[in-house]
């Protein structure tokens, strides 16, 4: 479960998040949408502790929070095997629990889950963007997190790879039963992965509802977003 209440974050006197509240239950996925620079990724960074909020409360289920980064953020000096088990090797409390054989088995299992068997010895630079993203999924779920955050998981991928990634988001939700948040711009990702949608504009929440409501309701903001129209209440930030 993720519960965010009255979240406020300011950078250099600019309020990026202004009184944002939402809740995501276990096994549910929330899609956060909005213009670039509207504070979507900031929400994820605050939830996983990379940034500190100015005010507001954030509650998550006990256990690990995993994050899949926009450009995968795999460690380029480590091969796929070592990337996946990084947390298990480096965290003192986890290191004691696994033998090398256990770790090999975990890598095999996680790679199978993301459909990438046989790439253990490859380095990130030897993989395509889609494969890197899937390895980062495997790395994220290695500690069996209760919260999974995806920062634009389909950015820069071709439509087929995007569909594959969307399928894995759904599959991971079913396998882990974690509460998930997906930051995205793509309607296909919203429709195929999300149970709820939250839309941000100018630091404020302008819509919360289901993907179906987003497309059907008469909300001017969502209408403009769905139709990708230049006319509507949302103006580009440079205007």
């Amino acid at each position, binding site marked *: 479960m993720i519960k965010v209440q009255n979240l406020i974050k300011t950078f250099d006197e600019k309020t990026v998040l202004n009184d944002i509240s939402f809740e995501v239950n276990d096994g549910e996925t929330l899609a956060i949408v909005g213009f670039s620079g509207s504070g979507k990724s900031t929400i994820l960074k605050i939830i996983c502790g990379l940034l500190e909020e100015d005010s507001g409360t954030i509650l998550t289920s006990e256990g690990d929070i*995993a*994050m899949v980064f926009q*450009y995968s*953020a*795999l*460690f380029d000096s480590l091969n796929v095997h070592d990337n996946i088990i*990084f947390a298990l090797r480096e965290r003192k409390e986890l290191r004691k629990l696994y033998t090398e054989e256990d770790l090999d088995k975990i890598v095999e299992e996680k790679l199978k889950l993301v459909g990438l068997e046989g790439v253990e010895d490859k380095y990130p630079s030897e993989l395509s963007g889609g494969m890197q993203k899937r390895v980062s999924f495997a790395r994220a779920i290695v500690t069996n997190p209760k919260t999974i955050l995806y920062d634009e998981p389909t950015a820069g991928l071709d439509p087929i790879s995007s569909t594959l990634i969307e399928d894995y988001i759904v599959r991971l939700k079913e396998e882990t039963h974690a509460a998930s948040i997906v930051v995205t711009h793509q309607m296909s990702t919203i429709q195929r992965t999300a149970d709820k949608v939250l839309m941000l504009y100018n630091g404020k929440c302008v819509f919360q509802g289901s993907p179906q409501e987003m497309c059907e309701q008469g909300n001017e903001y969502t209408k403009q977003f769905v139709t990708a129209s230049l006319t509507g209440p949302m103006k580009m930030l440079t205007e």
Partner: protein
Amino acid sequence: MEQIRAYLKKSATYQLIQILEDGLEDFLTTFGEITIRGLSALKYILTFKINWKEVLEQSARFGVSSLPITISIVSMTSIIVAMQVAGEMVKQGGGNYVGLLVAMLTVRETGIIMSGFAIISMIGSSLASEIATMRVTEQIDAITVLGVDPVRYLFVPRIIAGTLMMPPVMIIASTCGILGGGVASTLVSELSYKAYFSSVWSGLFIYDIKVAIAKAFTYGFTIALISCTCGYIAKGGAKGVGIATTKAVVWSFVAIVFLDLVFSIAFFF
């Protein structure tokens, strides 16, 4: 009032103050970051929370890969000193002091400071750019989210490797420097090897060697810490990596020269 303010903002004095203010802020921020990361790394080192495999890998980087360039730079410096002074000193009847001068200068100053400069240029810059690249590609964020402290994972092995490898690198490079000075002295003057090396022994003091080793430990620690921190606090994309690398090199150079001054005052006056 607004017009006066706008006019003042355009004035050279205002812009100069602004540059000084930005510079001071950057200096204090960087210094603060170096101090905080240094203390945090020391906490891990003193409690032996160390990844020794990574320390070995980084030691090879500090020690083995930097050795050829360090030997070259220190040797060339000693050769230059020997070439400059040997001929004249032999002419003036001071041939017996050429080895002493080269040895003393190499052990006390040029050996360690030139080794430091070589390590900064070769290893410090590469550490800073490596960690800065990890910062701008969110790899450091990923380390944090995975529940690992980046200081323990990235700083500690590099700092230990830098601290432990600097003395042997300096000793090997200084030895090569003194030998090179001998070759140069005999080539440019009528000085014999025997005369050169017997005066070398009279110029080598255990106290000087101990101070040089202490300096090497300190410089190794400082270079690794500054380089890691400058990379760690990098911002932006490729430009940020460039700025971080330059900052690491400049800060390390200045720190080494400043520490050398402190050592000279503390141990030789």
